[in-house]
């Protein structure tokens, strides 16, 4: 990297986190700590059926044991202090209301919050072709275009509503892909999950619009524990996107979500994430969100397909491995990821592709970009079971280093127990070449434009997988990240 470039980038302000504001609304929080009373309180406030409370309590006892036994997760390439589970408030909702029946009930401050974030909740203002469920702290604020979706039989509502309205579907699927015993954070989520989204697409239906949930952590001292469940019946198709932001705070906030996807025969689920939680102070590393998320999809039926696409730019610590269990024959799993870390951010992210059915196929494209003193790791597993004849996997993991003080790491795990498997893994680590920069300069592009162009090109294979409506947003986010990203 040339000196002028470095100077230019240094000169850029780096505290450019646009979404760092806080909305002052009167809320009621659960008392700090993880107790049975808290779990009961959450369930009560959300007016949940008995079976769901019991499910939570089972998970609670399990996670309490794990926490009390001092369980930690130390195998990842991450260095942070484990969350203090008893100092977190596990529920925060606007006073009096733990859910809203219509948009008219939603306080103006909250509507304005989402407007400022670029997510208008009134349908006439909204992006056409995208239905949004907006979640602030523990509560779903509003879900747009519900009626239009209903015509097609598509159910898109907050998880809480779904548990009340469609208990038979929720009960059948929740916890089947990510059991509450799966890992510490999934167990925690299962006990205290607040809200989240539920999507059900009936047989043969192609969901007529993009579905999107926007998550916002607002209150201090709280965590976000949403739970998302998407079920695609045979032949159904749905594309879903989540976006995330949080205010700038000095303390760390915990985000421990669980996402479960189930694709039946011939169904396809496309799940995209633009994650821009507050990353902490770029100079000191103080504050920021711990993004510790369990995401897993089950290709249950033959010929089903699940595709994860993620752009991870935020959070102080990110640890997530959106995975696919390829149980159905001829099923397909895909993982496309861009993880950008700068400042003191750390990410350990990747995927798990578990080939069980015959003729299953998976593709992994991961692009990691690291700047400043950030650490960025790809960790991914490809596992081919004994009976998974003719499994195919292709993985490409590229890392780009912007500056001499950051780190980029690749840890793939390839496990094959079937001789017919064909697995290919490639990984590279490199920097933006001086010759590439000079070539761009010679064509009239300045430092900033050239760097953006090259980094965007590096991520192109992944960005092109995002739904069109969000690809532009993603590119802009990446551009903002690059401003002042190199020291």
């Amino acid at each position, binding site marked *: 990297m*040339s000196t*002028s470039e470095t100077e230019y980038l240094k000169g850029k302000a780096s505290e450019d986190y646009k979404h760092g504001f806080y909305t002052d609304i009167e809320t009621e929080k659960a008392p700090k700590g993880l107790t049975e009373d808290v779990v009961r309180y959450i369930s009560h406030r959300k007016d949940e059926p008995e079976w769901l409370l019991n499910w939570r309590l089972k998970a609670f006892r399990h996670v309490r044991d794990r926490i009390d036994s001092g369980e930690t997760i130390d195998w990842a390439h991450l260095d942070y202090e484990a969350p203090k589970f008893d100092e977190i408030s596990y529920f925060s909702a606007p006073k009096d209301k733990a859910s809203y029946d219509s948009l008219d009930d939603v306080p103006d401050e909250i509507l304005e919050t989402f407007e400022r974030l670029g997510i208008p909740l009134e349908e006439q203002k909204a992006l056409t072709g995208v239905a949004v469920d907006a979640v602030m702290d523990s509560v779903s604020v509003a879900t747009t275009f519900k009626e239009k979706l209903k015509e097609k039989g598509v159910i898109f509502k907050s998880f809480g509503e779904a548990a009340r309205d469609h208990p038979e579907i929720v009960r059948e699927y929740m916890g089947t892909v990510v059991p509450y015993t799966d890992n510490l954070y999934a167990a925690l989520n299962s006990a205290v999950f607040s809200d989240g989204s539920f999507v059900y697409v009936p047989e043969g239906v192609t969901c007529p619009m993009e579905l999107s949930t926007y998550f916002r952590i607002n209150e201090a001292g709280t965590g976000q524990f949403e739970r998302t469940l998407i079920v695609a019946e045979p032949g159904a198709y749905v594309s879903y996107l989540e976006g995330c932001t949080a205010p700038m705070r000095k303390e760390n906030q915990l985000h421990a979500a669980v996402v479960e996807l189930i694709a039946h025969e011939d169904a396809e689920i496309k799940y995209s994430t633009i994650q821009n939680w507050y990353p902490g102070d770029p100079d000191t590393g103080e504050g920021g969100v711990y993004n510790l998320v369990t995401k897993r999809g089950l290709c249950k039926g033959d010929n089903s397909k699940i595709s994860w696409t993620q752009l991870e730019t935020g959070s102080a610590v990110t640890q997530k491995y959106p995975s696919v269990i390829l149980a159905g024959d001829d099923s397909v799993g895909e993982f496309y990821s861009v993880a950008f870390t700068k400042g003191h951010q750390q990410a350990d992210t990747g995927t798990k592709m578990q080939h069980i059915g015959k003729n299953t196929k998976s593709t992994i494209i991961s692009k990691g970009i690291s700047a400043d003193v950030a650490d960025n790791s790809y960790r991914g597993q490809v596992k081919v079971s004994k009976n998974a004849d003719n499994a195919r996997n292709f993985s490409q993991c590229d890392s780009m280093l912007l500056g001499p003080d950051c780190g980029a790491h690749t840890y793939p795990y390839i496990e094959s127990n079937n001789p017919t498997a064909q697995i290919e893994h490639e990984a590279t680590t490199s920097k933006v*070449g001086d*010759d*590439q920069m*000079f*070539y*761009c*300069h*010679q*064509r*009239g*592009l*300045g430092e900033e*434009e*050239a760097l953006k*162009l*090259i980094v*965007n*090109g*590096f*991520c*192109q*294979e992944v960005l092109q997988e995002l739904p069109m409506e969000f690809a532009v947003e993603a590119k802009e986010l990446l551009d903002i990240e690059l401003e002042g990203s190199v020291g």
Partner: protein
Amino acid sequence: MALLEIENLHVGVEGEDIHILKGVDLTLDTGDLHAIMGPNGSGKSTLASVIAGREEYEVLDGEIRYDGDDLLELEPEERAEEGIFLAFQYPVELPGVSMTNFLKEAVNAVREARGQDELSSAEFLQQMRERADMMGLDADLTKRSVNEGFSGGEKKRNEIFQLAMLEPRLAILDETDSGLDIDALKNVADGVNKLRDEDRGFLVITHYERILQYIVPDRIHVMMDGKVVRSGDKDLAQQLEEHGYEWIREEAAAAAA
């Protein structure tokens, strides 16, 4: 009118004790096309790089004036904006960056600097199609990543295509003919000839006389050991082809002695 004036140019490698150019003098008028020839290591490509502003090189002495102004003050992209174009000897690959995106950014950066309006997407695509056609470039190439997976010939033709898109006032071709087959050579030469006009100057750096059969230069300069040792008209190329560089070296040595 002089477009480019180089006077007593001495150049070394940044941070190292290497002296490559040892007093180059050269003047190029607008509308002219000059060829620079010379054996390996004579400093031809270094001269091209210094004009374009490559940072590895350090100007030790002398000056370069472009349109009468000091060129050495400017950053590489400012030189591009002022209308200097270098067709690279080894065009660089930019994985994932589409030709269309790249050129659109470049054309608009240059247009903005020249006080022209940005081209709309439609205008830009129209212009791109026309010029690709004019250069005999497969339109599919413009959909691919910049230079990625291009054959050697495609890369060189792509440089001339970019030259056509960016409409520079001074175009420098650094060994653009090297490694080309005869069809590609004609193609590149044809492209250059179409782009020659009153407002544009060309410096064509080459090892061989062959491209000069297709691009007829107004003047030829021979560089050796970091200096222009002889200049002449197009017939000089023929003499070089027949007799090699040795006689010039001997002459130069005799003159120096």
